[in-house]
């Protein structure tokens, strides 16, 4: 078995963990008094967490792989019970009830919900002759497994950790869910976040977020005509229409006549829609209809988001949603935090200021610099080289996991692996995105790097169970 372990994954895992430990040490380093193994300090504690997670990893590798399959549902059940208990017994720490303390150690059960949910989902897909598209009830069963932890974690007021589970849509997609649904979900989330997050400043008389979403819609419209309907002629004409229209508007603006942006987009989209509808009469009806429909739904979605958000909801509800997606902090604006984070990263330059020389993170301008904003410390001290290295390591790790997923012989192994992949993609995209100011601030850690025992253990368990399953793939036959 020893030889069938995927050592490449382990090496990537260890590299990331070590980078994390070093960065936490840097982030919590105090110019005045420093000591590496002071266990009351973050870095000291983190070394203990890392040591213990290696022990956990070994223990997982020593157990029989069939255990995880056989006990998938019981493990899921126990973790769900713990999540329910947590709601009631966890103390209220700054508004959230998600931490259980055991003496000097505090753990966040939500982090352990991930591997349990992955196991349960894998077990479901492993049932005899189970295919997702076979009947609607199969979707229903999969969604129940996913939504129970989501609701429980929401009740603990840990919105960020709950959102992570939505990434399992990738697993459903891989197992047969229509690509259109995935595409629609990704578009809807992007539209919503962009439209709500970038409400200012104005561009062509419309919020810059709305403008960006319109550009997305136009691009997707043309892209679908080109690749999906395979009608380059129509696609090119629509593209030229928009470029021409854009040029006219620009010239008019230079002459002092400002065309309202919303009117421009609506007229152009309406006109090209009629044109495409005419083309539809002549060619493959269904694909054109889907393309048109997608465009129209996107536009109405954009407007309804704006309308519901701006007119139907009360100001305090707006703030609550903004706080939930992390756009506004209730004490001070998170725009300020992200700005500080961007300054810290930006000041790193190409090569960084050097280990322990970051002033921005040291001077506590960046909040949570050892947990959710750890990427910031790397950006400041190790520069562009450091940040790209970390991103490439993550990319390599996740692509390797996708490779492992596809070489599994059972749906159990494959689905479990894709769950791990989905969680990692979501954490990476959202955490780094918020630190560099592209995503709303959602408080979730950067896997393996952020300070905190629960998250590190949670991801260690996720990865090592996968490695254990993978290592046994030859034993099955």
């Amino acid at each position, binding site marked *: 078995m020893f030889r069938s372990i995927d050592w490449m994954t382990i090496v990537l895992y260890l590299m990331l963990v070590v980078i994390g430990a070093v960065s936490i040490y840097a982030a919590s380093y*105090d*110019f*005045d008094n420093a000591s590496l193994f002071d266990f009351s300090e973050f870095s000291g504690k983190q070394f203990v967490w890392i040591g213990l997670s290696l022990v956990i990893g070994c223990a997982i590798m020593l157990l029989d792989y069939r255990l995880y399959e056989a006990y998938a549902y019981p493990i899921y059940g126990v973790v769900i019970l713990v999540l329910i208990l947590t709601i009631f017994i966890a103390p*209220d*720490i*700054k*508004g959230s009830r998600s931490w259980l303390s055991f003496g000097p150690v505090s753990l966040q059960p939500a982090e352990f919900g991930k591997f349990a949910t992955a196991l349960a989902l894998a077990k479901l897909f492993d049932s005899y002759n189970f295919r997702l598209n076979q009947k609607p009830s199969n979707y229903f069963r999969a969604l129940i497994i996913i939504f129970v932890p989501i609701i429980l974690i929401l009740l603990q007021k840990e919105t960020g950790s709950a959102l992570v589970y939505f990434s399992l849509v*990738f697993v459903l*997609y*891989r*197992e*047969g869910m229509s*690509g259109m649904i*995935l595409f629609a979900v*990704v578009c809807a989330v992007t539209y919503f976040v962009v439209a709500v997050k970038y409400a200012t400043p104005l561009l062509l008389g419309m919020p810059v977020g709305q403008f960006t979403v319109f550009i997305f819609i136009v691009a997707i419209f043309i892209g679908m005509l080109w690749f999906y309907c395979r009608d380059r002629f129509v696609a090119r004409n629509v593209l030229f229409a928009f470029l021409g229209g854009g040029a006219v508007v620009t010239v008019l603006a230079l002459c002092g006549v400002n065309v309202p942006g919303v009117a421009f987009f609506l007229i152009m989209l309406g006109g090209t829609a009629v044109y495409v509808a005419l083309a539809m009469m002549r060619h493959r009806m269904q694909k054109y209809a889907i393309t048109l429909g997608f465009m129209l739904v996107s536009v109405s979605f954009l407007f309804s988001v704006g309308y519901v958000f701006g007119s139907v909801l009360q100001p305090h509800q707006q703030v609550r949603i903004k706080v939930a997606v992390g756009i506004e902090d209730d*004490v*001070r*604006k998170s*725009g*300020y935090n992200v*700005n*500080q984070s*961007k*300054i810290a*990263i*930006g*000041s*790193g*330059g*190409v090569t960084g200021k050097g280990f322990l020389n970051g*002033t*921005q993170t*040291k*001077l*506590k*301008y960046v909040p949570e610099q050892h947990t959710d904003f750890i990427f910031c410390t790397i*950006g400041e001290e190790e*520069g*562009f080289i450091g*940040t*790209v290295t970390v*991103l490439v390591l*993550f*990319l390599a790790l*996740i692509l390797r996991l*996708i490779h492992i*997923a*596809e070489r599994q*012989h*059972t*749906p159990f192994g494959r689905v479990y692996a*894709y769950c791990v*992949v989905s969680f990692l*993609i979501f954490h*990476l*995209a959202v955490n*780094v*995105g918020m630190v*560099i100011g*592209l995503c709303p601030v959602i408080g979730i850690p950067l896997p393996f790097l952020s300070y905190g025992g629960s998250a590190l253990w949670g991801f260690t368990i996720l990865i090592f169970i996968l490695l254990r399953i993978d290592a046994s793939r030859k034993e099955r036959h």
Partner: protein
Amino acid sequence: MRKDYKLEKRKYVIGGFLCLIVLIYIVRLFSLQVLDTKYKANAESNALLERIIYPARGLIYDRNDKLVVFNQPAYDVMLIPRDVGNFDTLALCRVLNITPAELKQKWDDMKNPRRNPGYSAYTPQKLISQLSQEDYGRLQEKLHKFPGFFIQKRTVRQYNYECGANVLGNIREVSAEDVDRDRYYRRGDYTGDLGVERSYEQALRGTKGMEVLMKDALGRIKGKYEDGIHDVQPGSGRNLKLSLDIELQEYGERLMAGKIGAIVAIEPETGEILCLVSSPGYNPSELVGRERGNHYAELVKNPYKPLYDRAIQGAYPPGSTFKPTQGLIFLQEGVVTEGTQYPCHRGYVNGLRVGCHGHGSPIALLPALETSCNAYFCWGFKNMIDKAGTTPAAQFEKWKKYLVEMGYGYRLGIDLPGEARGFLPNSDYYNKMLKGDWSANSVISVSIGQGEVLATPIQIANLCATIANRGWFITPHVVKEVQDTVIDKNYRTRRQIHIRREYYDMVARGMRMAVLGGTCRKANLGDIEVAGKTGTAQNPHGRDHSAFMGFAPFDKPKIAVAVYVENAGFGAAFGVPIGALIMEKYLKGEISPAHKAMEESMLHSNTIQNSGVKKH
């Protein structure tokens, strides 16, 4: 296993999606870290300072819009240790008017991790709190000589009246627990302590603002960062309008001078508390400013416990003020009617004896209330508890249920912290205490408000308000209005007692007779029709407690008052005159010449010497 190669291709979509995101992020990082030089410049001029702008705390008015509590600016001297270079220590001492030794002491305190656990060389630290206006003026002028120093404006409380400290409360610096409990607070913030400052903290405190300032390399402030777009404006605290009549409160505290006890006056129709006196009290201004800690320690050490709010925390035997509740229960349960008479041969004689004083016998309910006859209520209680066909325990629970409804035995829910619940025994309590074998006689003294029953003065006043309303009350409260919002629903909703209104009428008439010709004749205010009930409560601490409750005018009650004076003898001795003066003062605005002598004697009498507490 069958492989679905069409689905397997989807790995490219997922992998592609990931690659796309990583690519976007790398492009973004490239532009942030390599192309853009703005951030580098920003970081070098780095030093930003977040200065909290504290909102003005809400003001407190009394029911007649008299300003009771307001704010005065105070100034904390702050500094960021890392930015503090060499400065002229002596010059700073001169400016602040302190000795170098004092400055050294403050500096050491600031750096001492035990006294200041949040110490860091990089964040603002408080060196000296609450400078006076003059010191502030001098320092402001010379501030440029002291790099790293800045001034944080705060407000402290000021009081227009020297009374009502138990209701008003005060403010103190937040404790470590406060910071853990509520993310609004940061170390060094103020929060309400005791009184309405505590219970209405959320409304009073407002929301903090913040300004982001730029500093130069020497730590001097160079103006707002990015023209202040990151600033957050503070939101002012909400003003409170108390239901208290602050002049009545002041008068009540004067009447109680030299005595231990409490006065509670309630407007029956609204449940609004008109005055809530606890004696001895203290001047709220003592708990303001730099001397707060010392004064607080003195108050804690004072043997008469001025911090203990007897009006809502003192649990006393209610004595005869409890008798109206008994009459009401007996009537509702059909144990007695208005005409039912019981014998009183200088007391209740039935196997044991509960003494009484001289009056006619047999006696009905109204004259029993008039003369405060013990025997009547003992007989009624006996007939209720020892009713044939049921058990004493079951009957006792029924009896208790009425009293709970009237507000005894549990907290009423007043909007002040620390209310006590008093005590009502239940049948289990007696089952344990009396080994299961008991009857009305074993517990007979509760029927006259002695024995195990304990009530707070506010519960007694609330009973009186309920009788004034003839059967309902609104939870007593001290805050009438909170600016821009409505007060809690509990303070607007009637709580109905399940006893018929006509029975309340009878009891009220009995209390009226007590004023006209019975035990509370001293409360007869002539043209204002007063109804009342005295109480003389035996207690283990020495002389009897003197109690009174009364309301007026009889038909349209405007005030219900309860007075409780510890170790002052008969109810008629202190309770009745003080209660009468409070009612007259409130209803007429002044004391009529006929009662001046009574007022003088109350203002100057002293019963504290009977309390058995030795002042050391």
